[in-house]
C-alpha cells in the first residue's frame, strides 16, 4: 500500500475497499514511524489531515467523487496554505501563517485532495541537496548517508519512502526533476505559464514553476491536469494555453515513429559513467520500442549554468526584499534604528546560501554591472531558447540524463557552492527556455536511482507523457522502492 500510485489508491477508494480516513491514517502512521529518521516533513497536523479525509468520505457518500477524492498529497513548504505555518524552510518567516491558499492548493482542495503537510526544502528553494533548509537536511531513503537532491528534497523523500503517494514541488532550475531523479520518482516541470504561481513563495519569478512528484507518469499527468489552467491573479499565467487530455496522453504503449533527440552536450566527460550507461541503455530500450534516436546539438548549453546563476539570483534579490521585518516574520531584538532592524533581522533570518544569492543578484543588477551580467545573461537565455527551437524542428522530444551524478553524500559539497551549482547542469536550460521537462527512473548507479529526462516544445507535455509512459510500461524501475522503508505493500 505505501508504494501504490495515486491511481491505484483511487481505484481502491472507488471500489469501497478503503476509506479516505483509512488511507490518511496509514500514511500518518508511516510519517510517525519514519519522519524522525528522514526529516521529510517540517509540519504535520494529523488532526487536520483526518478531518479532511473525513470530509472527503462524507462528500463521496453523497456525490460522484471528484478527480482527487480522498487522495493524500504533501506539499513543499513553499506553497502558502491557510492551515498551519508556511515558512519556505527559512527562519526569516518565523511565525508566518499565510491568510490565503496558493492557487494550486485551492485547485487540489476543490478536486477533493487531502493535504498531508509541509515538506522540507532548501531555504527559499535555493539549493540542490536540501542541506540549506533552516530545519536541517533530509535523507535519501535509498541511502540515508546521501542527500535526496533539492530544492524539493522533502517532497521527493516523502514519496520515495512511502510517507505519501504524491507531493508537490517547484522547479526553478531543476528542483523537481533533480530530486525526483535522485530518489527514483517521476517529476514533471510543466511549461512556464501553465500553472499559476500565485501563492507560491517566489524565488525567481521568470523561472519558477510548480509541478508534481509521483510514483508514475500517469499520476504526474493527473495532478498536473488539476493544477494547470489560467489564473486571472497571475499575469504570467497564460490564458487559452494549448491543452490536451492529460490521461489519454499517458496511454502510449510504444514509440513508433517518435524521433528522440540526443544532445551531445548532455553526455559529457566528467559525468558518472554508470549514469551514462543507464541512460544510454534507456535510449536503446526506446529504440527497441520503435523510436528513432537522432544526434543533435544544443550549442549554448555550456553557458546555461552561468546565465542561470545571474538571472535567478537577480530576481531573487528583489523578490526577497519584502522580508524586511516590518510586517511579518522574524525581527531582531531591540533594533537601534531602521537600518539596524533591516540589517540584523535579515542577517539573523537568512541562511548563508540565500545571502550569497541576494548578494550575487544585487551585484549583477547594480548600476555599471547590469549590462555586463544581467543583460548578457538574458541574451544567452534567448540563444538557449533558439537552440531548442531549432532542435525541435528535427525531433519530437529530447532525452538526456536528469543529473550527471547519483545522490552524493551529505556534507560533501556544502563547502563548494560552485560544484553544487553544477548538479543542475542538465535541468537548468529547460527553465531558461520555459519548456516542459520530466524525469523518470531509468536504473541505478552505485545502488542509487538514476533519472532519465524528457524535454518537449512548450505546451507539448503530451509528447513527453506519451514517451515516458511507454518507457514506464516496458520497464520496472518505478516499482522499486527502498527496502529499509519497505513496510507492507
Amino acid at each position, binding site marked *: 500500500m505505501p508504494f501504490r500510485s495515486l491511481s491505484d489508491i483511487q481505484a481502491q477508494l472507488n471500489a469501497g475497499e478503503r476509506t479516505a480516513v483509512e488511507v490518511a491514517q496509514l500514511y500518518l502512521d508511516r510519517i510517525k514511524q519514519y519522519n524522525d529518521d528522514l526529516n521529510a516533513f517540517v509540519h504535520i497536523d494529523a488532526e487536520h489531515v483526518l478531518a479532511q479525509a473525513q470530509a472527503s468520505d462524507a462528500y463521496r457518500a453523497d456525490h460522484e467523487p471528484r478527480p482527487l477524492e480522498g487522495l493524500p498529497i504533501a506539499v513543499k513548504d513553499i506553497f*502558502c496554505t491557510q492551515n498551519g505555518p*508556511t515558512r*519556505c524552510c527559512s527562519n526569516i*518567516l518565523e511565525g*508566518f501563517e*499565510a*491568510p*490565503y491558499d*496558493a492557487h494550486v492548493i485551492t485547485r487540489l482542495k476543490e478536486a477533493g485532495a487531502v493535504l498531508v503537510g509541509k515538506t522540507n526544502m532548501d531555504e527559499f528553494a535555493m539549493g540542490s541537496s536540501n542541506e540549506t533548509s533552516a530545519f536541517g537536511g533530509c535523507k535519501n531513503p535509498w541511502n540515508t548517508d546521501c542527500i535526496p537532491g533539492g530544492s524539493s528534497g522533502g517532497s521527493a523523500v516523502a514519496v520515495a519512502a512511502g510517507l505519501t503517494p504524491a507531493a508537490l514541488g517547484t522547479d526553478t532550475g531543476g528542483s523537481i526533476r533533480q530530486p525526483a531523479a535522485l530518489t527514483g520518482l517521476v517529476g514533471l516541470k510543466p511549461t512556464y505559464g501553465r500553472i499559476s*504561481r*500565485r*501563492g*507560491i*513563495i*517566489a524565488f*525567481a*519569478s*521568470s523561472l519558477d514553476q510548480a509541478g508534481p512528484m509521483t510514483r508514475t507518469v500517469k499520476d504526474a499527468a493527473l495532478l498536473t491536469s488539476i493544477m494547470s489552467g489560467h489564473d*486571472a*491573479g*497571475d*499575469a*504570467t499565467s497564460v490564458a487559452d494555453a494549448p491543452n490536451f487530455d492529460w490521461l489519454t496522453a499517458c496511454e502510449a504503449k510504444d514509440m513508433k515513429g517518435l524521433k528522440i533527440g540526443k544532445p551531445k552536450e548532455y553526455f559529457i566527460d566528467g559525468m558518472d559513467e554508470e549514469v551514462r550507461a543507464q541512460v544510454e541503455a534507456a535510449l536503446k530500450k526506446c529504440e527497441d520500442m520503435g523510436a528513432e534516436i537522432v544526434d543533435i546539438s544544443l550549442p549554448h548549453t555550456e553557458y546555461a549554468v552561468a546565465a542561470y546563476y545571474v538571472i535567478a539570483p*537577480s*530576481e531573487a*534579490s*528583489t523578490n*526577497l*526584499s*519584502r522580508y*524586511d521585518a*516590518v*510586517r*511579518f516574520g522574524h525581527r531582531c531584538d531591540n533594533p537601534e534604528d*531602521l537600518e539596524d532592524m*533591516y540589517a540584523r533581522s535579515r542577517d539573523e533570518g537568512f541562511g548563508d546560501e540565500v545571502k550569497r544569492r541576494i548578494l550575487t543578484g*544585487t551585484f549583477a*543588477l*547594480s*548600476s555599471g554591472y*547590469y549590462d555586463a551580467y*544581467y543583460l548578457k545573461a538574458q541574451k544567452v537565455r534567448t540563444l538557449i531558447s533558439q537552440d531548442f527551437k531549432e532542435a525541435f524542428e528535427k525531433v519530437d522530444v529530447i532525452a538526456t540524463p536528469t543529473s550527471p551524478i547519483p545522490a552524493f553524500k551529505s556534507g560533501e559539497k556544502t563547502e563548494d557552492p560552485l560544484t553544487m551549482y553544477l548538479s543542475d547542469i542538465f535541468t537548468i536550460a529547460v527553465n531558461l527556455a520555459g519548456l516542459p521537462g520530466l524525469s523518470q527512473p531509468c536504473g541505478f548507479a552505485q545502488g542509487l536511482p538514476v533519472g532519465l529526462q524528457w524535454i518537449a516544445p512548450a505546451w507539448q507535455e503530451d509528447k513527453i507523457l506519451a514517451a515516458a509512459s511507454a518507457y514506464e510500461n516496458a520497464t520496472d524501475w518505478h516499482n522499486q522502492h527502498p527496502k529499509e522503508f519497505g513496510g507492507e505493500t
Partner: protein
Amino acid sequence: MSWEVVIGLEVHCQINTKTKAFCGCSTEFGAEPNSQTCPVCLGMPGQLPVLNDEAARKTILTGLAINANINLESKFDRKNYFYPDLPKGYQISQFAVPIVEGGYIDIPTKDGEKRLGVTRIHMEEDAGKSMHEGLDAVSHIDLNRSGIPLMEIVSEPDMRSADEAIAYLKQLHQIIKFLGVSGADMEKGQFRCDANVSVRRKGEPLGTRTEMKNMNSFRFIKQAIEFEVLRQIEIIEDGGEVKQESRLWDSVKNESRSMRSKEEAHDYRYFPEPDLPPLRVTQEEVDNIKAGMPELPNQLRKRFETEFGLSAYDADVLTQTQALAQWYEALVAAHPANPKQCANWLANELLGRLKELGKDISESPISAQALASLLDRIADNTISGKIAKDVLDAMMESGKDVDTIIDEKGLKQVSDTGAIDSMIQEVLDANPGQVEAYKGGQDRLFGFFVGQVMKASKGKANPAMVNQRLKELLG
C-alpha cells in the same frame, strides 16, 4: 553677467481609478489606516500584481492630450529600495520603455506662447505613508495608499523661471482635471511635484542641479524654486560649488534644507518586472481613446475667443474647469443674443457670489437656464442691469425664477413716457437752482438729474428713457 535658470519638473499624479494599480483594493481617500489593503498591496509572500487596465487607459489619454507618442508595447520595471512604507522592497514602475513619450505643453508668456517639452509619462504604484507624529518614539505605517496608480510626468528642462514652471504646472493640472483622469487635489497629495533646478551663466553648459522633493502647492513650488535659484547663485558668486542633492522645502521657515546627497543616493537596480508581461495596446484602442477625448482648455479658449468674441482674459477664466466651460456654453445656448454679456454675468456676478458662498459652479443654486432668463429680462427692458443684480441675489437665495421675483418685489422697469415725464418734472421742480445752473452751462449736472430720477423711481425707471426725456425736457 546675467544668470540663466534651468528648471525641469517631475509631477506625480494619482490616477483616479476605483481600484489600485495591481490589486482590487479600493482607492478611496481618508479611510481607516490599513483598511484598504490586501495580500498583494501588503507585499505578502507569493502574491502577484495584475495590472488595472483603467490606469493604462487614463495614462494613454493624458499622453494624447499633450500630443505625445503612445508606445504600443511598454514595459514594467522594478525600482528597488528599502523603506518601511514600501512593502515589497521595490516599486513597480516603468523605466526603460514608458507608455508615453515625447509630448509638449504650450504656456502663455508675455512674448507669446512658449512650447515646453514633456519627455515621458510612465505608470507606477504609490507607496504607503509613514506616520511619526504624536506616536512617541515609534512610527506607524498606513498602507492604504500603497499600490494606488500614479502617472509620473517628466518634463524637459525647458523652463527658465519659477513663473514658467508654475504656468506649466497649472496648465498640466488643468488638462488632467479636464480629462478626468485624476482628482488632482493637491492637498490630498494627488498632484505632487519635484523640481530640478540649476543655474548657469548665459551660454555656459548646464550647472549642477538640485532636486526639490515632493511639493504640493503652487505657491510653495514658486517660493522653493526662487529660493533655490538665489541660493545657488549666491554659492557660485561666493566661489563655491553647488552640491548635487535632494532638498526639502520647509514652508514654515520658507527655506529649503538638504535631504540626502549624491554620495548616499540609491542605486535603484532597475530591471524588468518578471511578474508582469509587457503592456501591449493596439493602435485601434489608442484611436478609440482619442475619439473619446474631451475638448481641452487650449482649444476651448481659442474657440471661445473666435466663436463668442470673448477677450483672452474672459476666455481664460471661463475655461478654468470643464464644468465652468460647459456651464457657459449652456448659458449662451439659452441666451444666444449676447455671448459677451453672458460671459460678464457668469464670470463677474455669478462666480463672485458663488465664491462668497464657498461654492463651485457645479454647486450653483441657479441653473444656466435661470441666469439666461434674467439676461432676457434685461434685454427686453423689463428690468435694468442694476436691478438685475438685486434680482440675481434674490434668485440665489430663494431659488425662485426671475419673473416671480420681479412680480413679487414690484421691480418691473418703468418705461411709460408719461410716468417718467412726471417723475422728471417733480425732480426739476424740487431743484430749481440746479436747473438754473445747468441751463447756465454746467453740463455735469445732467448726471445729478438722472440720479435723482432713478432714486425717485427706486431704480425702476428705464435709464435710457430717463436720459432721452431729460434731455428733451431740459431743452
